[in-house]
């Protein structure tokens, strides 16, 4: 283990970038970059993100012991940088993406296969030199799995349900999965390219559609990054209303997920009831803010509409209903042994792997990793609210169900506090226009885990570069590990207990 202040001390040797908020960004030499990678492998640091732009690679790191977040940037004018994935496997898919989108080459990377680029786009390196594609695309090489009596089951991209597309290649020995290899990228929409050059308002609409189920969390991450960059102080009431929306979104998704996981164990009763709760939450959301999923309700500078007196009543009534209707469902889950027979010990993920990947959200906290961005780095108004961060260690499907149950209870508690303490005042504030290039960053706890948004604004307040990093980046790979030695038939329930975002990942 390195000493507590090591990350900060190491980066003292770098060249700090001014106008990057709220955490520091430093330009590092290749030597320092390599030293950071060694640190990543041997210390308690977590990689929060890895992204690039033409001529530069950015690595966001978090040091647990000193609660430090830092972005290290390596200039790579020749388009090559020392691979992070070589030492730290969670970086591999991100690096393959950097190579696909920007043309940055991770030197020494263990895997050079394309990731999001399936060879069909009309352009190569759309975020980089954007050249015309050349030559024939070669078929994707799946990793070999060799052994006696192994067989392969290819699944997707179109799945048998109302679900996003992705490809899963199972290698099985009879019933037992020996290896799962994912191939994603099917829903890549080119969002990062759209964002470059967009106005802040346009960008906010795209950010709200990176992953529809997390539209509030993404919008919040984006506006907080913008507000950090432009040093805009939004009114208090806006913070509180944003938190209300974020908790409504968390409630709706957790209710939906609890039902859907149980449904994948053929326990449809739970789905039926949870879906009703979810619907009630969406209706209340629409009543209060005008959109069932609360899309575009959080805007740079505040929120789109204030919560009326009737809105407060609506949310209060919703809370009372949930307080009445949710506990019997918890009891039902708790008392249904046949259901737990499917969830207990299924889809176990090693806590060490969760830690290494910096896997957040329900998967992380069901596997012993306590990280919750609402608590740290934290953002208003959570510092004025009391809530627990539920933590479990079993790291199986059952733990992930329970974690969601506990988080529903916490969200109810949070919303009640928000209604009680909601300050009065305006809900919107015009953004500052610094008139110069500035950068901002935010880390927000969505229902799925921590969402990172990093951006640079031009002097005219348009977006120069914006990178949203979905929590799924560090969760999808763990699903490959979770399904190993489980039976093929348990894949749906494992997958649902993860509920990774395809759209958020593919961008």
């Amino acid at each position: 283990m390195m000493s507590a202040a090591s990350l900060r001390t190491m980066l003292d040797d770098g060249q700090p970038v001014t106008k990057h908020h709220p955490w520091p960004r430093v330009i590092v030499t290749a030597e320092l970059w390599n030293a950071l990678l060694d640190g990543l492998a041997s210390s308690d640091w977590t990689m929060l993100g890895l992204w690039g732009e033409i001529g530069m690679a950015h690595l966001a790191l978090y040091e647990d012991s000193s609660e430090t977040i830092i972005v290290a940037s390596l200039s790579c004018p020749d388009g090559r940088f020392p691979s992070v994935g070589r030492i730290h496997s969670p970086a591999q898919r991100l690096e393959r993406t950097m190579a696909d989108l920007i043309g940055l080459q991770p030197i020494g990377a263990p895997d050079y296969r394309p990731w999001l680029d399936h060879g069909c786009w009309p352009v190569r390196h759309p975020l980089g030199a954007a050249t015309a594609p050349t030559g024939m695309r070669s078929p994707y090489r799946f990793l070999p799995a060799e052994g006696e009596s192994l067989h392969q089951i290819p699944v997707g991209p179109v799945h048998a349900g109302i679900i996003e597309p992705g490809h899963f290649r199972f290698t099985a020995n009879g019933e037992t999965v020996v290896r799962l290899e994912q191939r994603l990228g099917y829903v890549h929409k080119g969002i990062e390219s759209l964002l470059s050059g967009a106005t802040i308002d346009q960008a906010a609409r795209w950010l709200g559609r990176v992953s529809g189920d997390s539209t509030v969390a993404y919008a919040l991450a984006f506006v907080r990054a913008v507000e950090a960059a432009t040093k805009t102080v939004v009114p208090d009431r806006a913070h509180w209303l944003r938190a209300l929306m974020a908790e409504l979104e968390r409630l709706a998704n957790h209710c939906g997920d609890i039902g859907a996981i149980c449904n994948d164990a053929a326990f449809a009763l739970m789905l039926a009831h949870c879906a009703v709760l979810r619907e009630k939450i969406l209706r209340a959301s629409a009543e209060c803010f005008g959109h069932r999923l609360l899309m575009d309700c959080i805007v740079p500078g505040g929120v789109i509409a204030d919560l009326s007196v009737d809105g407060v009543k609506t949310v209060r009534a919703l809370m009372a209903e949930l307080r009445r209707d949710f506990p019997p469902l918890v009891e039902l889950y708790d008392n249904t042994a046949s259901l737990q027979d499917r969830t207990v010990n299924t889809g176990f993920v090693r806590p060490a792997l969760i830690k290494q990947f910096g896997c957040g959200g329900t998967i992380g906290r069901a596997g012993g990793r306590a990280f919750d961005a609402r608590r740290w780095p934290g953002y208003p108004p959570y510092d004025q609210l009391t809530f627990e961060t539920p933590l479990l260690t079993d790291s199986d499907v059952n733990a992930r169900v329970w974690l969601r149950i506990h988080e529903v209870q916490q969200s109810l508690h949070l919303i009640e506090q928000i209604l009680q303490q909601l300050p009065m005042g305006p809900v919107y504030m015009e953004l500052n226009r610094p008139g110069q290039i500035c950068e901002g960053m935010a880390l927000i706890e969505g229902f799925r885990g921590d969402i990172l948004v990093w951006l640079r604004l031009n002097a005219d307040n348009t977006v120069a570069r914006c990178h949203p990093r979905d929590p799924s980046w560090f969760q999808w790979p763990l699903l490959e590990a979770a399904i190993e030695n489980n039976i093929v038939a348990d894949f749906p329930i494992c997958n649902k207990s993860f509920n990774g975002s395809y759209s958020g990942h593919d961008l």
Partner: protein
Amino acid sequence: MRKLLLQNLLQSPLTIPPPPPSEAALTELAAKINRATQRRLGRSLSIRQVDAGSCNGCELEIHALNNAFYDLERFGFHIVASPRHADVLLVTGPVTVNMKEALERTYAATPDPKWVVAVGDCGRDGGVFAGSYACVGGISAVIPVDLHIPGCPPTPMQLLQGLLALLQAQESR
């Protein structure tokens, strides 16, 4: 214990909900869909949902059609797992370049007669993603579309209304 619980739960109004009384519109729709569906297809219409690059917002609302409030199946609509069983493809998203082939193949795998409903603003013309190098933009750029249901995402009510409109359009052909 569990039996008791189940009984309690089953007796609650949630389990067998009539369309909520406040929703006259929904009830009205229900009657219309019943008559029209029956005229055209007897009692059932199988729907296969295809995500051709959506942000997953549209999927959430399509899911909601199955909850007790909307209870899609009472109208004779049934969501099926394979295009081979489907009468209707319910397609979302701006058709990402990476999903184009899968969408074409899903369409080819659906037996005739078949209808395609493009869901959401993305499904109509690419929506907010129109113009991206990674999106074809609109379902009808790839396969023939019979109906567009706008919205971002369309609400379950709009989806129900759209499915009804599809039936009426087919009738008048």
